[in-house]
């Protein structure tokens, strides 16, 4: 009788220890985390929706609320102003912000492969990259242009830059000869505007040697120091969300559509399916791809910083271990 009791007690203890080990942040009340997304709700953030809706955040002791971004919303600013605890930010944006004094730290490098493209009208003579010389090209501006500018500089091309904002209508109306595009978004929007693939020429920057990692998960350094386990849990749960999205893309798509509809963002399933299908391979590597999911390689970091410095967008870059103080989500 006593032995049985003792065995039961040990079993209970072991169980509680295992639980504690798996979720260090799990004890007590879940920590509220506001996660600001860098754009309106769309499949670009499918992993976050899946992590939230499937309870991955909650399981790790996090009470995450997702805040949609959009035109005029800069997540780095929101973090700085304390309107959110975490946010998704482009790597180059994050580096620029850090250089300007916003102490961002990276929790996860979500998109490791570049999705940036340059799309030009064939009927305006854009067939090879050299054809953009002297032509009107719309670009998003600021740090997003760094890879384009790096490319143009490297190839000795001068383009007539036109600001590109939130739509590609200027391109579609023929106001520019080429425009910047995300393979998972604008490239398909052009197609969904009735433009056939044969009518345009698309250049993927990663094919031209100017691909950089893109979306990452960030918070302020101070927040990281105060809530390191929670930050690591947030990164891990987000990556788990992406893995789940890859496992069940249609389920993820349903969530994407729900979020898009609830925030009255124009969205259609065909485009969101395209977006999810295109962005997933840039997050979760196929066999042979050189990156580890969620992890920012030193090489990419140095390359990104070098590109920004070369265009005087930043003066210096902090060491990688400062920029990325945690490798909690390093492990797959």
């Amino acid at each position, binding site marked *: 009788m006593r032995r049985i009791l003792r065995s039961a007690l040990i079993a209970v203890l072991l169980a509680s220890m295992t639980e504690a080990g798996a979720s260090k942040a799990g004890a007590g009340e879940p920590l509220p985390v506001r996660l600001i997304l860098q754009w309106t709700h769309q499949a670009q953030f499918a992993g976050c929706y899946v992590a939230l809706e499937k309870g991955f955040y909650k399981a790790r002791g996090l009470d995450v609320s997702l805040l949609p971004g959009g035109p*005029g919303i800069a997540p780095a600013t929101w973090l700085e102003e304390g309107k959110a605890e975490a946010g998704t930010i482009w790597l180059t944006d994050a580096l620029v912000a850090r250089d300007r004094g916003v102490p961002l730290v990276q929790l996860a490098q979500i998109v490791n492969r570049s999705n940036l493209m340059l799309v030009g009208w064939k009927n305006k003579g854009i067939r090879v990259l050299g054809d953009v010389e002297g032509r009107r090209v719309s670009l998003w501006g600021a740090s997003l242009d760094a890879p384009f500018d790096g490319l143009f500089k490297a190839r000795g091309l001068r383009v007539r830059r036109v600001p590109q904002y939130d739509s590609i*209508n200027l391109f*579609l*109306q023929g106001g520019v000869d080429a425009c910047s595009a995300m393979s998972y978004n604008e490239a398909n929007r052009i197609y*969904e*505007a*009735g433009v056939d693939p044969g009518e345009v020429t698309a250049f993927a920057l990663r094919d031209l040697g100017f691909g950089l990692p893109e979306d990452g998960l960030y918070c302020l350094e101070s927040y990281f120091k105060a809530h390191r386990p929670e930050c690591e849990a947030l990164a891990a749960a987000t990556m788990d969300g992406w893995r789940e999205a890859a496992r069940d893309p249609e389920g993820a798509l349903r969530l994407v559509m729900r979020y898009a509809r609830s925030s009255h963002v124009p969205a*259609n399933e*065909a485009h969101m399916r395209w977006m999810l299908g295109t962005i997933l391979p840039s997050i979760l590597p196929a066999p042979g791809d050189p990156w580890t999911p969620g992890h920012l390689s030193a090489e990419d970091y140095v390359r990104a910083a070098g590109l920004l410095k070369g265009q005087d967008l930043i003066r210096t870059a902090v060491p990688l271990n400062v920029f990325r103080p945690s490798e909690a989500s390093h492990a797959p």
Partner: protein
Amino acid sequence: MLRNMSIGARMSVLVLAAAGGVLCLIAGYGAHRSRLVLKDELEAKARALGAATAFHIEVVERSVAKTAEGLAMAVSALPLQPAEVDDLLTRVVETNAEVFGSAAAFEPGVFGQKDPGTAHYAMARSGGVVLKNLAEGGYAYETQDWYVLPKELKRPVWSEPYFDKGGGDILMATYSVPVWFRDGRFMGVVTCDVSLAWLSKELTSLPLGEQGYAFLISKIGTLIAHPTRQFIMNESIFSLAEERQDPALRDLGRRMVRGESGFVPFRSFTTRKDSYLAFSPIPSTGWSLGVVFYKDIITAKVNALGRTQLALGLLGILLLFVLVLWISRSITKPLKELDAATRVLASGDLETPLSIPSGDDEVVHLSSSFEAMRLDLKRYMADLQATTAARERVARELQIAHNIQMSLVPRTFPPFLGREDFEIFAVLDPAREIGGDLYDFLLLDPFHLCVIIGDVSGKGIPAALFMAVTRSFLRAFLREAPDPAAALARLNDELASQGDTNMFVTLFCTIIDLRTGEARFTNGGHNPPYLLRAGGALESIPLIGGIVVGAIPDMPYKSGAFQLAPGDALVLYTDGVTEAEDRAGGFFGEERAEAELKTLQGKSAEDLVRALRGKVAAFAEGAQQSDDITVMAFKYLGAK
């Protein structure tokens, strides 16, 4: 199966099948034609409706565009104070019902280095016109399509429809006119906004009812107005094509955004119903209006028409059926009657005349032929009956004659009971037609036996009667005077005197003294009998001359005599024996008769007769007996 049906039924079935086939062809062609006509009608209606609606939208948008262009002129021409700009915009919104909002947005920095840019905006609200500066509140007007596009394109532009968050906060489309200073510097943009709510209202007010719907797509295919609200601004015709994996829809979308107009088969986005789509461009905005008509309204109309046609057709077929039945009845009725009549005919009733229908067709001819046949048959039957009656009469006569003949000859053997001094036996086998043999024997007194054999010419009753007369006379004469020659002479005279009967009889008559065996005889033209002596010798009764009896009067008949010894047999016969024919037509003949008789010595009278008769029968081998065959034997046994 058809072969087992009556002509009427077969005709009905075939005619109905043919008529039904023709009807189906006509109905099918009719349905096809009416479908085409209805499609043309629908096309015309859809095109007209589409063009009219597109024109209406175009008019509104042109007026909006004109307003904006007027406004642009004012803004560029006049140096205006901000309050004056607001006043102008307010008036524009107040006086133009179509204009939801109007803006005059100036390029940041145009009014000095520190100018952050201003965007005056007036918009209609339920309470009146509301004014605001779009530059305030984080609304980066200078990044909006309505601002960027005219600026970069350097021409007025209809924006893609958009939900103006922070501006008008409604779904709208904006006509933007770029404005320049006289020196060519870009000043800014003036706009007029059109709410898209009125477009949806406009489209839902189209007289389409349940027959279809209308939708509007923007220059890049985005659905601006559609009965399915979910589609508006979310989907484009191309995203729907992608979603449904429908390349044809994408091609259609490309035609529409290129500003073409047309009428094409279409599958509704939402209901997936087969439809037709008429599309027309709205040139000013580059939008395209689609008017969808469900195909099933055509189908319903065609079906309604088809039902009417079917009902009429069935009615027609029914009438046709009745008509065909009636016609076939009228054709087959005389045939049926003929059939019934011929059955009666076949049963043997030749009395009922066939009714011959009037007219001159095949049935009438057939009926006439049958009637002629009936009459022929009837006549033939009558003839047959008459012939048969005659033949029967002859047969009856023959029978009577035969009966007479057979009743005239003694047929009881032995005829005289207790007489042991002689045997007598005779057979007479009459031929079927020709007859006239007779034999007779009578005891004139206990010691004298008269034996007679003869053959009457002719046949039938006259012959029988002649025989009867002959026998009666002869018996009478012999009883009066037992002298054969005298009796024959008297008989001859009697018979010859009977008139012109042309009948006669051959007769051999002998009277035998039974005590002595002495016999006297006479012969009137008959085959001389044989004497079969007890010792085996065969003799013929000597020929003494004498012609047939009854032919010529006053003829003398001689008497002859022969002697019988006990055991001798007198064998008498008629020419039926010697002239019996075998199958090859050969006669039995006297030689054969004599040869046979020689073998029969010692036999009793009966055995002798039967044996000879047997030989004749064997010779004839069943050949038709052409004459009476009579054999008689008298065997003298001697006085006791």
